């Protein structure tokens, strides 16, 4: 009982005072700054020379729709997101499937599969820039060279310099980095399934593949949901990976990179903030339902 929130102020006011600084910081620097961003996005502050910006409503947003550079960046983001989510989910799931029963050396494999998550993408950009180099045949280095060596030379291509595939090519390093995360989530999902379920199915004479198909996989649906949400929101934010490999080149620009360019090179804060707000809305769209789902689950488990 002592821990229930009581109506008597004296029991909780102390704790509240301790978190007031954090609440203020989050209120100002998260929510206040978002509000300020929205405000700038509705003004005509399109260059550094405009000292007293005027209110222009949603003009900057409608401008984005007809801005081919923005739609190009958006298209790239969709392509990137598609391959990144599909590739990372499948790769992580396969890794979990290979490890889930327990195997000698599991710790060894798992540690290696997860190390990419600890490394800066700006630093890894140098290597991926090489691995995804567009030279082919005798001049090839990187992946093109590897493909030749294993007899898949016909798969060589110009990766992030290709006309339509640039955004897809940059999903490869992203998959490399995040597959371990998905592995960890799915592996925990597998290990969370009570052993009785598996045993019962086995006693009933179900084959191993049927056990996976009808007993284990359905249990992993919530995990899959979590995986998709996490990957989706990570993908929307992708920024340093792109910059590290290909800078702000037009071919591989995504929304976050275009936002940076608008803000820094063009000093167009109105456009920069409008793009940022679009990004925020996209993420809110997937994160808010997710937060509600997680909180509902937590309350049910109590």
């Amino acid at each position, binding site marked *: 009982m*002592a*821990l229930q*929130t009581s109506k008597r102020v004296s029991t*909780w006011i102390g*704790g509240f005072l*301790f978190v007031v600084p954090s609440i203020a910081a*989050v209120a100002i620097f998260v*929510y206040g700054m978002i509000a300020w*961003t929205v405000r700038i996005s509705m003004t005509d502050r399109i260059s550094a020379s405009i000292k007293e910006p005027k209110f222009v409503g949603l003009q900057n947003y409608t401008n984005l729709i007809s801005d081919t550079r923005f739609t190009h960046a958006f298209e790239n983001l969709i392509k990137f997101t598609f391959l990144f989510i599909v590739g990372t989910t499948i790769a992580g799931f396969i890794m979990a499937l290979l490890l889930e029963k327990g195997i000698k050396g599991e710790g060894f494999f798992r540690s290696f599969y997860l*190390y990419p998550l600890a490394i800066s993408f700006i630093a890894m950009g140098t290597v991926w820039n090489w691995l995804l180099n567009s030279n082919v045949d005798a001049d090839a280095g990187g992946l093109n060279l590897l493909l030749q060596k294993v007899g898949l030379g016909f798969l060589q291509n110009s990766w992030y310099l290709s006309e339509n595939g640039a955004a897809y090519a940059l999903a490869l390093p992203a998959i490399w980095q995040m597959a371990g995360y998905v592995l960890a989530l799915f592996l925990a999902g597998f290990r969370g399934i009570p052993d009785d379920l598996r045993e019962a199915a086995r006693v009933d004479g179900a084959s191993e593949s049927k056990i996976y198909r009808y007993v284990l996989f359905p249990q992993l649906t919530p995990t899959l949901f979590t995986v998709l949400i996490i990957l989706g929101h990570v993908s929307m934010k992708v920024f340093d990976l792109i910059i590290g490999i290909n800078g702000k080149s037009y071919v591989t620009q995504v929304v976050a990179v275009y936002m940076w360019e608008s803000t820094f090179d063009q000093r167009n804060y109105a456009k920069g903030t409008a793009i940022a707000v679009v990004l925020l809305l996209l993420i809110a769209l997937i994160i808010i339902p997710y937060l509600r789902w997680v909180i509902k689950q937590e309350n049910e488990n109590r």
Partner: protein
Amino acid sequence: MTAELLEKKPTAIANRRKRSGKEQFWLIFRYASLTFIWFLIVMPIYVLVVNSLKGVKDVYLVNAFDLPKGLDFSAWPISWSGGDYFSAFSLGESLARTLFFVIQSSIISAIIGSINGYVFAKWKFPGSNIVFTLFLFGMFIPYQAVMIPLVQLVTNMGINKSIYVLVMAHVIYGIPICTLIFRNYYASIPDELIEAGLVDKASRIRIYLSIILPLSLPAFVVVLIWQFTSAWNDFLFAIFLTGGSPKLSVATTTLNFITGSSNQVFYGLNMTASLMVSLPTLIVYIFLGRYFLRGLLSGSLKG
């Protein structure tokens, strides 16, 4: 919770018996697949390491995968100091400076997180759950959505060239995740412990200091490592808040290094610089990977 599940031993390994031919085949298949994936995952770091040992000039794309002919460390001191190649800045200084500010921000974050976590788990106030949810949302936002006002603010205050701006940014925007990790950790401590303290007329602060805090070491390690890694690897705040100055954070220095300040690109130096920048977080991961994983999984709210 999720992190503990990973450590759980699967039953299949516990009751081992003689394997049938089919099982034997699958075991070999699994090892072969795991090894294949291992090679794919290790390849980029392999390329970094071998090419950082080939000196300054012997590094070409076509022999990217070849082992070095001998161990040539000459690229290391040049990458560290900038040498004649990059007179404008020194990566070594940047590394030291970044290490200094990243450690500071991690420690401050951990202290704040611990206090917040205690309140949100064991000393709730009316509306604390709603406030906590609002914190959580702050964890997921794209920081672009706060960046321009933030840039204006630090520029107007004239502190946009200071490394302390980055300390503050990482502390403030790290509040949600640090609070979450501590709150989940403290939620697993039985309420009875605190009730016993209250019965003994100990104050809530006393209880925190003498009961909760001594139990908190694992959560501190998780938060310190998490904040260290994310601040070290951060590029977004560094590039916006310091205007991309190569002299402040290691991320922006590296970018300047890679894109090159001279006309000629020295791949050997680039590879060495990249490896140098990756080493601190990699070392932390090698020794404390388990705790890093916990931080990672809390980020999905499933920790």
